[in-house]
Structure formats: structure tokens, C-alpha cells
């Protein structure tokens, strides 16, 4: 019985027309960006060549650390002193400390990341050799200037996250609001099903379509990137949550980009589903998630960015140095908060719809 309900919801929510329009925009955008990047690269390299000696613009060079034992220990002491100062400042200023930083630059977090890196070098005696430490902020724009598979794929996934968020909004916002607006909900509620079953079927169908769309985009971009380009390294070092360091394949950022895309799209889908159901009109399913997204910048400026709903799903930011996470944030704040926010929205969707009189 539930299988039929779910299959029906999938069929109703998935519109071939919308999907084809999205695919067309995706292919067109992908082609334009790829061609533009190639032309842009030729221009830049040419300009640098005529002006003087050739400049190495590879992002991988910015990740490289090659230091002696003395250098490492000296750096570590400098960083420790810096951290102490920053923490004192935070203690003195209290809440207003966070307001001093614009969105995405957290002195303490970045300082801790650097300390973790140097501690790792010292603990493992990795002196006088080329070590590559992943930096998410640099990597995000790396795809623009660097012809490597993982950086290109990560950048492209970041670019098309917007398109997928729009698609998630279209799917999520219409789930209940459409049926309320065109009156078909009255027919569905006369069927021998409970309201919870209906909400669950709609929610699962929405999640299925969003996940399928994310996977399709991910597979396409990854396949293209790895056919067209190569990665210059095998492995890199990654800092997690400004505390621990681990070694992983150079393609690990691709997983992070995928996680970002998936969590971001699901977040938009769930918000659209919740607000569309709560407000009974589809337009609110569009307006509220975007309003929340834009308000995230303001939230970061006034120091509550780390608690802001749309920031709590940016988990990929906790990997690497120089990350774009909100000030004062921590993976172990964001993850439970995300579960509370989005789990809460899902639970509220059930409660709200269960108690509602359908007009």
C-alpha cells in the first residue's frame, strides 16, 4: 500500500518538462563555463609571459610545506602565542568578538588549524620534504586556474549547487502546496490512508528526486573532469575541525564537494517542503529558504553565524585550513544543530499537517 503511495508521489512530483529544462540549463552552463575558463587561461598565461618570467599559478604550490625541524618548532611557538592573544581578545570582548570578523574568517579557527599542521609535522618528524596540506578556501577557486581533475570537479560542483538548490525548491515547495492549491488534497484524504503516511510518502519522494538529481550532476561532472584532466598528486594531508590531521587520496575534496552539494540541496528541499506545507502556498516554499540563505551573511556579521540554519550544513568547511566556515563554529556544534533544525522541520511538517483542517 505504502509503495503505491510513494510511487504515485514520485510520479506527481517529477515533471519531465522541469527536469529537461534543468538539464538544458546545466549542459549549457557547463559548456559555457568550460569554454570560458579555457580561453581565460590562455589569455592570463599569455599576459604573464609577455610581462616577464612565467609565474607558476598552480594551487598545489600554495598547499606545499617543506620545512626544517627548527622552522617548524619556531612557527609552532609563534602560532601558539598568536592563539593565546586571540583567545584573550575573545574573552575581553565577549560576544562582540564575533562581530569583528566578516563572514568566513575566523582567526581562532585558522590559527588552530595551522597549529594542528605544525604539530603533525613535528610529531611525525616529516622534515625537509614536500608535504601538501589541503586548504579549502584556495581549493574552491583552484578550479578556475588549475587544470586538475579534482579541483575542476569541485569548482563545477560548487557552481551548480545553485541550480540544484533551485530544483530542490521546485520539488519540495510543491509537495503539499500544489495539492492544497488545486484541491486534489481533498480527494487524497478520502482514500484509506493516514495523513502521516501521505506526509512520509511525499517527503521520501522529494528526497529521492533531490538525491537522484545530485547524483546525476555529480556523476556527470566527475566523469568529465577525470576524463579531461589528471591530478598531479596521489595523497594530501587534511585537517579536520582545526584539531586532527589525516592523510587521504587527493580526490578526497571531491567527496567533500559531493557532501556539500547533497546536504545543501537536501536542506533547501526540506525547508521548501516545510514552509510550503506550513503556509499552504508554494511561493513561501521559495521565499523562506532563500531569505534564510541571504540572512546567513547578516547572521555571521552579528556573530550568530555558527548557529544559523543554512550554515549548519556546510560540513565540508570543517576539512582543511583557511576554511570558509562561520566564526566560532565547530563541527560538533554544526552537526547536532543541523540534525535538530532539519529533523525538527520534518517532525513539524508531520504535526502541522496532521492537525490541519483542509479547506
Amino acid at each position, binding site marked *: *500500500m505504502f509503495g*503505491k503511495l510513494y510511487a504515485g508521489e514520485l510520479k506527481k512530483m517529477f515533471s519531465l518538462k522541469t527536469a529537461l529544462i534543468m538539464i538544458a540549463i546545466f549542459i549549457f552552463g557547463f559548456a559555457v563555463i568550460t569554454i570560458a575558463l579555457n580561453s581565460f587561461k590562455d589569455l592570463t598565461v599569455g599576459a604573464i609571459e609577455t610581462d616577464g618570467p612565467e609565474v607558476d599559478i598552480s594551487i598545489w604550490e600554495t598547499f606545499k610545506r617543506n620545512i626544517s625541524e627548527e622552522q617548524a618548532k619556531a612557527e609552532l611557538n609563534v602560532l601558539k602565542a598568536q592563539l593565546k592573544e586571540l583567545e584573550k581578545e575573545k574573552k575581553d570582548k565577549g560576544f562582540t568578538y564575533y562581530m569583528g570578523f566578516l563572514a568566513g574568517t575566523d582567526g581562532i579557527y585558522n590559527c588552530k588549524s595551522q597549529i594542528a599542521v605544525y604539530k603533525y609535522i613535528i610529531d611525525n618528524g616529516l622534515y625537509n620534504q614536500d608535504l601538501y596540506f589541503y586548504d579549502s578556501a584556495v581549493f574552491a577557486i583552484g578550479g578556475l586556474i588549475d587544470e586538475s581533475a579534482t579541483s575542476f570537479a569541485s569548482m563545477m560542483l560548487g557552481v551548480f549547487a545553485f541550480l540544484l538548490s533551485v530544483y530542490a525548491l521546485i520539488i519540495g515547495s510543491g509537495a503539499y502546496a500544489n495539492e492544497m492549491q*488545486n484541491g486534489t488534497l481533498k*480527494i487524497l*484524504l*478520502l*482514500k484509506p*490512508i493516514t495523513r502521516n503516511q501521505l506526509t512520509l510518502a511525499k517527503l521520501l519522494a522529494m528526497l529521492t528526486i533531490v538525491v537522484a538529481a545530485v547524483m546525476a550532476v555529480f556523476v556527470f561532472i566527475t566523469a568529465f573532469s577525470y576524463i579531461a584532466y589528471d591530478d598531479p598528486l596521489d595523497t594530501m594531508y587534511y585537517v579536520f575541525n582545526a584539531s586532527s590531521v589525516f592523510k587521504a587520496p587527493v580526490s578526497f575534496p571531491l567527496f567533500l564537494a559531493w557532501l556539500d552539494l547533497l546536504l545543501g540541496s537536501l536542506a533547501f528541499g526540506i525547508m521548501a517542503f516545510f514552509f510550503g506545507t506550513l503556509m499552504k502556498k508554494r511561493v513561501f516554499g521559495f521565499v523562506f529558504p532563500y531569505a534564510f540563505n541571504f540572512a546567513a551573511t547578516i547572521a555571521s556579521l552579528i556573530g550568530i553565524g555558527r548557529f544559523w540554519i543554512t550554515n549548519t550544513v556546510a560540513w565540508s568547511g570543517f576539512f582543511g585550513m583557511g576554511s570558509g566556515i562561520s566564526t566560532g563554529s565547530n563541527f560538533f556544534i554544526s552537526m547536532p544543530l543541523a540534525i535538530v533544525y532539519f529533523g525538527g522541520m520534518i517532525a513539524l511538517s508531520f504535526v502541522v499537517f496532521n*492537525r490541519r*483542517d483542509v479547506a
Partner: protein
Amino acid sequence: MAAVLEVKNLTKVYPRKGHKDGLTAVNDVSFRVNEGEIVGFIGPNGAGKTTTIKMIAGLARPTAGEVFICGHSVTRDRVNAMKHVGGVIETPDMYPDMSGLKNLNYLVSLHPKETMLDPSDERFSTVSKKELDAQRVEDVLKMVGLWDRRGDQVRKYSLGMKQRLGIAQALLSKPKLLILDEPANGLDPAGIKYIRELLRRLADTYKIGMLVSSHQLSELQLMCDRVIIINNGKIIAERRMDELSAGEYKGGARIIIRVDRPAEAAALLKEKLEIQAEVIGEELRATTSAETAVITKELVLGGFNVYGITREEIRLEDVFIDATGEGR
């Protein structure tokens, strides 16, 4: 006869700003609908008809009271209660981009297999749900006369076709109870007649109990077995249609007497039989339980020429206006 619908002390109070008690839309309403019986549900606009119907269908939550469909409570045992219910509430809305057939194919899939075929039937284990569903969809589309137009998008249907598709959709579950809110709304006379005859046939053939709300009282009178009149959230009257067509109303029948010298005849009837007759032109009108033969005898003995005495059928409209106090 078994009751397919039992409404017990149903009450709905809407919260209203500035009012402590809220707005009572439906106030302690109780009635029942038996199998094979068409019950008209009438009342002025805002009387609480649609709110009552929505509570019966489980679209709105009752503030108090309970609804039982085939013995199952709508609020507590929704899945079983809704197994054999079909309905069109307010407007016959369907998915406009799908064809009529696809709409029904989707909706029929939401009904369990035992709705389509009794589990004790020997074919139950051999025939698939899909076949049963396809058969049922074909049956209901043929019943409402839409089989030839099954492939068209619903948005291209006329209002009459949409109403018929709405009824077809309601019949998918082999219902024991049909809830129809304004089924003939916006239809032309031929369409109204078609729906009326269809519903009457369904009630008689399949013993479906129906609760039909409508403003078209003359249509209801032709179709219903009984009407319930609701006003200000309360049931104010209940009438059997056969009583009305026999001219029986308020303990008597309405009679029209055509006689010479009507004014004098009226005085005679008052004196001899205590009948309050009204003189209208050449006619006398009265509501009485006295037999026609007795009246004729008195008038003839009194020396009047009686040209005719007819019992007038009571119109539902009169009952309605009388009960609701509208039009005064």
C-alpha cells in the same frame, strides 16, 4: 436497514479573535444514512453544511462528537472507515495535466486489493491487483459515460465531464457511502438530469448510501429519499420525500378546492369542519387532514358547485423556506 453513516453529536467551533467562545459552525448535529438511501443535506449559505461534510470526510477535526462510517470511527480508525467511502467535496478537482484515465489509475492504486475483490472469492489469489484496478477503472468510467474520453487531459474536460469524473473517482472504492457536495453545481439541465439519474441508479443497484448537499431543491426532491435541513449549525427539520409527494405536511395535506362562491364556501368549511381555508381568486387553499370525500360532501350539501378538489404536492422549497424562516 444498516446504517452506513452515523453522525453523533458533531460540533465544530472555530477560534475567533476577540471572542472567548469562538464561532460555532456546527452545533451538536446527529443523523444517520442507511444503505441504499439518498439523503439530501440542505441549508442556507453558511449554515454549516460543508463544515459537517468535511468532518464526516475527515478533512476537518471535530471539536466534539464522532462520525462512524460502516461502524468505524473516522477520527480513531481512519483507514478502515475510509475503505468504502467515495466523495466529491466542493469542487471535482483532479490533476489537470493527467488524462482522466491516468487520474483514476493513480487514485485506484491507493485502494487495497480487498476493496476491489472480496478475499473469500476464489479468484482472489490468482488475479493481480493491477488487473482488478484496470477493470474497476474501466467499469466506473463506463458507468459515468466517460470511457470514450478517457485519454483526454482533465483540463480539457467540460464542467459536466469533470463532475462525472469526480463521481467516477468516488466510485473507485466500491463505496458503501458516497459524500457529494454540490454534485450538480454549474451543470446545464441535461447534465443535472444525467447526474440525478446516475445517482439514483447507483443507490438502487449497489445499495450505496449517499449524503448529497445541494442548493437545487427541486432536483433533490426528485432524487432523495429524505432531506435534512440545517441552519445556524443545527438540524432544524427532517422530512421524508414520499410524505412530501403524497402532499402530507404538518399533519395534513395541502388541498386546492375549485368551487363557485369561494368566500361562502370557506365560511361553511370553517363552521362544519374547522378548516382554515384561504380564498385566492376562484380557488380555496387549505392545509388539512380531512378526507377529500368528506369535504366534497359538506360542500355539495351546502349547495355549492364543486368543480374539483386536488391534493397539492408539497415542494421542498416550501418546506425549506418554512423551516429556515427565509424569504419572510
